[in-house]
């Protein structure tokens, strides 16, 4: 029955091989920027980006994922799937202890899932297909699904399913538990102190379950609210690691050229942030498919990539980022072609009706992008009015469907069933929410394809289904896909092995070491 028992072990061996090429050195302190200051560190209860980034060192998930999104062992050392793809058995690693010395067992996993179902919206929807969870012994967890769920092995990353200590949380009020402020996990680093507005300090876990790791003694997460000051902090040597998105894009080329500086776009494969324009399919000119296609032709996306994002990222071809599973580029293409856009607008009978554009209030880069897109659309004769707003105001407008075009970017979580379908299926049209099908696209065929895709087996069948879905969506242009974003991580070159998985910096610094 078990068919993938050894897979995990094999992959683990493969991962450590490159590290052996250069012997890691032990010791040292790393200063990294965390932006913005996280609202808390209890990963099971708050999941903002900065929370994941810091807490990924403290907590662990059952699995990690390689840059190709294959599962790797973490708290689970092996796993198997039954022939009918409905039973998943995880063997947990023995000898793992919490930071307070208590042993980690299957009961903690069971308890974590119980908590996450109440506190973690994405985990809850990831677990919808789970019928029951059993723990035949202290080191075995068995998930039984109601029906096969293709992406199931992709939901065990630390940010999606952090494992929390049962003995510290059971029977307490989770929201007010004192350990929320000094979290206890199984991870390579332990929480030490947090000076609000200044820094968060993590120290090495001497009893970490992977022998010899972590290599670093301490991590200081420096909190610097101003973007320019963060760049300066790197230049002056106050910090050595600038995680993706912590400095403005136009500073990236300058910082990259500094001595002893290494830049990588890796470590975002699991999230695969994809930027697009919400197009309100319900009303006005954008209800016409030809107008939406015209928008795709009118926008110079290569310009956006080269000039606004300094050449980072990739022009999107459709609803899936090229880094996630079942991506296909065998879809209709929309190269920059203003003449074609004009012709389509004419054909659709567009007569200069006013169209409102909501840029994303995430700083300079997004503001400039909004201006460039507006100019592109005006050049083909569209009458665009930019609405200035802040993040909260923009979210409200989008959630209330009170917009025509709006910028956004969303994570895809490696699998179309987790991060793509949610934006296009009609069952996800719900007013008041920002990250669902806010464009109001409704197509029974797409609904069926995404429903089938999630539960179909084997993978070749899923691929067939998602290929078809991508083709239909790209033809219909429910939203205008812009770029697969890349948030470069900038480090001093002496920081080695920082990013080893598809989850990147959020996966913790357990493999990182300093070459002194």
């Amino acid at each position, binding site marked *: 029955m078990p068919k993938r028992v050894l897979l995990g072990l094999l992959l683990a061996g493969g991962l450590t091989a490159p590290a052996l090429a250069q012997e890691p050195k032990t010791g040292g302190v790393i200063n990294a920027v965390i932006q913005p200051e996280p609202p808390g560190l209890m990963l099971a209860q708050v999941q903002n980006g900065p929370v994941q980034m810091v807490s990924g060192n403290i907590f662990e998930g059952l699995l990690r994922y390689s840059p190709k999104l294959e599962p790797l062992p973490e708290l689970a050392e092996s796993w198997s799937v039954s022939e009918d793809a409905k039973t998943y058995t995880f063997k947990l690693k023995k000898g793992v202890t919490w930071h307070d010395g208590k042993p980690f067992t299957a009961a903690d996993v069971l308890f974590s899932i119980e908590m996450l179902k109440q506190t973690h919206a994405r985990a809850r929807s990831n677990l919808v297909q789970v019928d029951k969870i059993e723990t035949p012994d202290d080191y075995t967890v068995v998930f039984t699904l109601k029906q096969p769920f293709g992406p199931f092995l992709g939901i065990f990353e630390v940010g999606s399913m952090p494992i929390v200590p049962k003995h510290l949380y059971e029977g307490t009020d989770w929201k007010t538990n004192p350990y929320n402020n000094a979290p206890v996990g199984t991870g390579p680093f332990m929480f030490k102190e947090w000076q609000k507005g200044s820094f968060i300090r993590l120290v090495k876990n001497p009893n970490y379950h992977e022998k010899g790791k972590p290599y670093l003694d301490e991590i200081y997460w420096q909190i610097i609210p101003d973007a320019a000051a963060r760049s300066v902090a790197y230049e002056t040597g106050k910090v050595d690691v600038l995680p993706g998105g912590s400095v403005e894009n136009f500073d990236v080329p300058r910082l990259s050229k500094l001595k002893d500086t290494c830049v990588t776009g890796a470590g975002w494969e699991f999230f695969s942030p994809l930027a697009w324009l919400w197009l309100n399919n319900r009303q006005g000119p954008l209800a016409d498919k030809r107008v939406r296609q015209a928008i795709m032709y009118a926008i110079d996306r290569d310009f956006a990539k080269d*000039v606004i994002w300094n050449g980072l990222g990739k022009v999107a071809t459709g609803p899936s980022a090229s880094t996630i599973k079942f991506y296909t580029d065998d879809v209709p293409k929309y190269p920059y072609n203003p003449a074609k856009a004009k012709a389509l607008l004419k054909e659709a009978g567009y007569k200069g009706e006013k169209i409102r554009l909501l840029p994303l209030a995430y700083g300079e880069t997004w503001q400039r992008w909004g*201006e460039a897109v507006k*100019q592109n659309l005006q050049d083909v004769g569209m009458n665009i009015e*930019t609405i*200035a707003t802040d993040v909260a105001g923009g979210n409200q407008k989008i959630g209330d469907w009170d917009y025509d075009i709006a910028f956004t970017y969303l994570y895809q979580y490696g699998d179309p069933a987790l991060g793509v379908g949610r934006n296009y299926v009609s069952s996800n049209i719900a007013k008041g929410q920002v990250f669902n099908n806010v464009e109001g696209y409704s197509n029974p065929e797409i609904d069926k394809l995404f429903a089938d895709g999630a539960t179909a087996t084997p993978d070749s069948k899923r691929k067939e289904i998602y290929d078809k879905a991508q083709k239909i969506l790209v033809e219909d242009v429910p939203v205008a896909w812009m770029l697969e974003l890349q948030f470069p991580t900038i480090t001093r070159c002496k920081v080695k092995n920082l990013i080893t998985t598809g989850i990147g910096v959020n996966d913790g610094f357990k493999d990182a070491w300093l070459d002194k």
Partner: protein
Amino acid sequence: MKQFWKSMLKSPSGVIGLIILLLAISVAVFGPMLFPNSPWRMVQRPFLPPFTLSTVPLGTDALGRDVFAGMIFGARVSLLVGLVSTLVALVVGVPIGAMAGYFGGKVDDALMRFTEFFQTIPSFALAIVLVAILQPSIYSIVASIAVVSWPPVARLVRGEVLSLRTRDYVQAAVVTGQSNSWIILREILPNALSPVIVLASLMVATAILLESSLAFLGLGDPNLISWGYMVGAGRTVIRQAWWITVFPGVAILISVLGLNLIGEGLNDALNPRLSREGR
């Protein structure tokens, strides 16, 4: 009137100020005719330094937009906001001040407490809050600048009216049974006008600065280019491309300076004591 121009032209600062203002106004009025293209259009490669291409004499910004065209179109927004918001502030401030000064007593108390209410709030903070609440647009910006700049007008007019209303010719008008509005409009205000005009010229300058500061903070009208917006957008890349911020910054400096010089010239020309003594 002739006398006024004569003394105005005698003051060097007034002349320089007038020349600058006329230049700025003609740029704002005629400039866009010479540049039919939108200043938002991306015309050249980004970060092109100034004086390298004759088509974009002042270089391009982070998106490859013409800095010179931006300055020309920006003049229009800056001056328009300055003039219109000052006008609105006068329309609000003058009647309130005049009524407070003329009627005195409870009316005065009520109106002045109301005015002080606005004066106790830091004006720039209030302007930011108003624009943020109303959503940035040219109308909300003009409105918020007017809201923060009328109280000084009201106080100034009240002071003038207070001193004028005890004059004999005003008392005479009261005795002959003229209506209050007639007395305020025909007898008092014309004589209170000269300090108001001087103040107004300085208010235009302040309004331009306020608009620039708002736009600098990202609270400008996103559909209109203005000098403050250009400085704000270029600020973050000042180490790579100084020209994006410097040129519009200089434009703000010169036009505000020009308006201040005019204010000084007006003061010289309209203040009879100063002009008679020839300073």
